[in-house]
């Protein structure tokens, strides 16, 4: 029996889908059989981030409606043969899948996979409730902005009310220079407000835009860019490895040193 993890945020555009694509790829790279479930029905995105948009035949709603079986709807990744995507339907609505159907679906997937990563839609309505219904654990993602933090707080409250005990936090789009100058909330400030365990910090990185447009998760470039490194550290931590928090800063300062050297 595998483990189902939902990645959620409340607010839109903070990086849920990016996190799912990268963490999922990272887990598969380490040999775990992983499936990514896009529950954002009507606003399908995850396929683009993996570059799988032209391989989709069936989707999650087709499975639920019995138009195909689960295996037929799974799309295998281009690069890794133990990574699969269960795409959302683009032409349906969130309400076309009930909470019970989603729970049963996730349970079926858990039988075949080591990890089931669930990409939750933004918001706290039906789509959110069905996305969390089958999950064993939850990762909350936020950016260091007050609006995003308040939404994360709300979502954590809802998750706790739904019996989730293993909650962890990813802080996305951190700009260490701005934090240093006091122009941005620091990770410590966020942890003080949200008081849950920290899973990882992802620095702001323009390479992410390139990676999304290319449909190639940035974790493949973890030796070259900060965000890729950050996601690979998150995967390590998720697997229970003890990773020092300095590693990200170390990597960063090394790059910065080269940068400074080149600029003279």
């Amino acid at each position: 029996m595998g483990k189902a993890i939902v990645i959620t945020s409340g607010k839109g555009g903070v990086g849920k889908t990016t996190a799912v694509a990268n963490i999922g790829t990272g887990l598969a790279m380490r040999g775990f059989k992983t499936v990514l479930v896009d529950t954002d029905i009507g606003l399908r995105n995850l396929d683009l981030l993996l570059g799988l948009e032209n391989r989709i035949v069936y989707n999650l709603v087709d499975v639920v409606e019995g138009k195909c079986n689960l295996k037929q709807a799974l799309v295998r990744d281009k690069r890794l043969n133990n990574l699969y995507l269960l795409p959302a339907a683009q032409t349906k609505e969130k309400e076309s899948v009930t909470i019970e159907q989603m729970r049963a679906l996730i349970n079926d997937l858990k039988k075949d996979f080591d990890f089931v990563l669930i990409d939750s839609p933004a918001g706290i309505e039906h789509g959110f409730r069905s996305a969390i219904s089958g999950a064993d654990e939850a990762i909350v993602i936020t950016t260091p902005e007050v609006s995003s933090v308040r939404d994360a707080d709300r979502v954590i409250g809802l998750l706790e009310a739904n019996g989730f005990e293993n909650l962890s936090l990813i802080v996305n789009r951190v700009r260490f220079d701005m934090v240093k100058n006091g122009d941005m909330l620091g990770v410590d400030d966020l942890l003080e407000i949200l008081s849950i365990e920290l899973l990882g910090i992802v620095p702001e990185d323009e390479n992410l835009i390139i990676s999304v447009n290319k449909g190639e998760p940035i974790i493949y470039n973890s030796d070259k860019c900060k965000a890729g490194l950050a996601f690979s550290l998150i995967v390590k931590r998720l697997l229970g490895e003890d990773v020092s928090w300095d590693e990200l800063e170390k990597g960063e300062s090394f790059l910065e040193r080269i940068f400074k050297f080149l600029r003279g």
Partner: protein
Amino acid sequence: MSKISFKGDLKEGIKIIIDPNLNWDEIRNLIVDEIKSKEGFLKGSSIYVDFQGKDIKDEDWQEFRKEIYEKYGIMLSKELYRLRISNSNNAKIVLGPIRSGKSLNVKDNLLVIGDVNSGSEIICNKNVFVLGKVRGSIWAGYENNDKATIFALELEPEKIQIARYILDLSKIKKEKTGVGYWVYVENGEVKLNRYSGGKKNG
């Protein structure tokens, strides 16, 4: 009815109720007489003096307090909050943080151990105590109970209301002395005080 009256019970402690028509010298003498006559019993206690709205000059009061304390070892106080807390001993205890979107509705006193986060609200008919930071909103005494108070260790709220009075948030200033903030209603206005263990404000 006598000019001043002495009362005491387990809930409210000892208090002296003053006839507001007396002048300051009369009050002083009467209090001293009362204390002298019961000195053995009262030694080491603290007494709440209820002036029933009468205005006393702060210098006079402080000087008098000091004198009584040095002579008889009795602490006088005219702050109300100690009394108010002890009026009812029942409290609902909630472990925080109270997260965004949560609405707590409580009839009795409320004790929150943890923060009250931005986007959450507490509606309570009695006193609210927060052992943490308030970033959300609190309404104490919602059934027009202006005797309700709010205590918080740190205060950066969205809204603070007692009965029908709303606190002017610009009154909140970061201070280094004392612990926490008391919010209460006095003469139809919400007041904010730094709590200093009841010693300095007397």
